[in-house]
């Protein structure tokens, strides 16, 4: 089972007296997993632990059943795009990729092909022939990403991969992540651009202050947060009547008309009961319901509820 998962077993990491992460246990299946948390919450530490750049103070980490200490096997399966914005001195993007691939033991011809493929995938183009020292922030991000994916790893760890990218490049990167995920790759992404990552993310790991706050499928996590009523947007022809009907229920704690008067936001503490009643209303024909969509069933909302704007878990 653990041979296709990234597993943290009661992992703690202390930097001297400073807590990195504390007693983290996780089992991450294939797909896109987003690490979410405020600055300094321990996301990068988790990623560094996952890739062996730092060693756990206690506990055990394994990736697809491999130990990060066994570099030769491990890094054939893992690619890590760090957020360290620095590169070996004096290299062009192309040399950087080729050096990296040759260290994997592939032949020069294969390295050439793989490097070309990676450069095309991140759309770096002719800039690959220029020295990295002269790259813009976005180009440096792209070459790091290219280096992480060039050797076709099964696990891709991406620390803030969208930082510094313009909107077009962000969209292209997200499409690439989605494609890689569809192909069965593990993607572990940390990002602050929650709205965009949310679109491709299968599950979320929330962390703050070195402690794991929640993990799992976004919708499941949202449902687990019972003390925060769920918000649902219903588009219909008579929102006032629907609001009045629903607001009569105990579990419906808030109703707010949409600004265009063709929808209503409702907050409920009991989603199952809420949907049952909504069905009944729809069957009665009292209102014509156009669409129903959860309004706070995303990473952003979960972040706000569980971690809050000040970064402390609530």
């Amino acid at each position: 089972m653990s041979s296709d998962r990234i597993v943290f077993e009661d992992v703690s990491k202390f930097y001297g007296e400073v807590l990195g992460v504390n007693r983290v246990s996780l089992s991450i299946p294939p797909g896109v997993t987003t690490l979410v948390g405020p600055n300094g919450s321990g996301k990068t530490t988790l990623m560094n632990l996952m890739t062996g750049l730092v060693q756990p103070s206690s506990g055990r980490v394994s990736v697809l059943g491999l130990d990060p200490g066994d570099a030769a096997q491990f890094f054939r399966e893992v690619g890590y795009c760090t957020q360290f914005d620095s590169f070996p001195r004096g290299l062009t993007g192309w040399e950087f990729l080729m050096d990296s691939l040759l260290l994997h033991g592939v032949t020069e011809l294969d390295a050439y092909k793989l490097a070309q493929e990676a450069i095309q995938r991140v759309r770096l183009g002719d800039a690959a022939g220029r020295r990295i020292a002269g790259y813009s922030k976005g180009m440096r991000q792209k070459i790091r990403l290219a280096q992480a994916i060039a050797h076709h790893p099964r696990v891709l760890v991406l620390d803030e991969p969208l930082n510094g990218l313009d909107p077009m490049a962000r969209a292209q990167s997200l499409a690439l992540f989605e494609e890689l995920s569809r192909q069965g790759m593990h993607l572990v992404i940390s990002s602050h651009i929650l709205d965009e990552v949310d679109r491709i993310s299968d599950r979320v790991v929330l962390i703050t202050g070195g402690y794991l706050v929640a993990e799992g499928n976004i919708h499941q996590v949202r449902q687990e947060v019972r003390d925060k009523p769920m918000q649902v947007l219903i588009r219909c022809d008579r929102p006032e009547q629907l609001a009045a009907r629903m607001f009569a229920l105990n579990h419906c704690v808030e109703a707010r008309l949409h600004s265009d008067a063709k929808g209503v936001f409702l907050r409920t503490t009991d989603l199952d009961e809420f949907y049952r009643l909504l069905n009944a209303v729809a069957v009665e024909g009292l209102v014509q319901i156009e669409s129903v969509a959860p309004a706070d069933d995303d990473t952003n909302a979960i972040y706000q509820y569980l971690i809050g704007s000040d970064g402390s878990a609530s």
Partner: protein
Amino acid sequence: MSSKKSVGFLASILEQPWGLWTLQARRLARIEVRRNMLSWKATWIYFLAFIPTCIIFIHLLVDRHTTTALTEDTNVLAGIMQFYYIRLGVFFGCLGIFSRLIRGEMVERSLHFYLLAPVRREVLLLAKFIAGSISAIALFAAAVLADFVLMYVGFGPAGQEYIFHGPGLGQLEAYLGIMVLACLGYGAVFLLLSMMFKNPMPAAMLVMGWEAINPVMPSLLQKISVASYLRHLMPITIPGDGIFALLTVQTEPVSAGVAVLGLLLLVGVVLAYSCVRIRRLEIRYTTE
């Protein structure tokens, strides 16, 4: 039972992917040598190595080379080896080259790229050491060869006689051997220091002080010094001047073989400990 165990151990060693490790080490070394020798930031090492060559070249052009000056110039060359190259040139050159290999990458925040490659950390360390050694040896051995040729070429037939039919070639061989050993010895020490300390320079300066006062140390302590082994290999010994000449303890002469083996053993021990340290190395650039 024990022979079975040892056969098993031997078999497990032979089963290791030596071919891949060699390939990776070669590629890593090539990257490092390129960066060590073909970067404009390396010009100061060229300066350290070749400044005596330039001075000797000026000597060749402007001074008359009488036969009587040959012995004097031979002593000067020995002094340059003993007091300039060993104590200053190779010392600071190796300090720059070898402390950059690991610590420099940490300062530049680029070491993680190597640690994220599918390369055993020991292979990485040894490849970097080999690359540093190749760079240092190539520069300093070339400089010594040039010094030697330029020093004697001005003497014409007398110089040729000294080199090819006298002790000249033997001395050249010894100087080149000393350069190789000095680069390996100081290289290993500075590589280790750079892994142990965020700023290895104070420790390196202590090493410099230790090497300077080493001749006055008891015989046992003299063995923990690169310069003491090299002193025994010098074809011509130039006595130190000042207070050190008075304080120097005369130790029993050591044969060249023992001195070479002793130094290589020192290098081996230091590298083995460095391998242990790199296994535990963590990337924490924020503390650099």
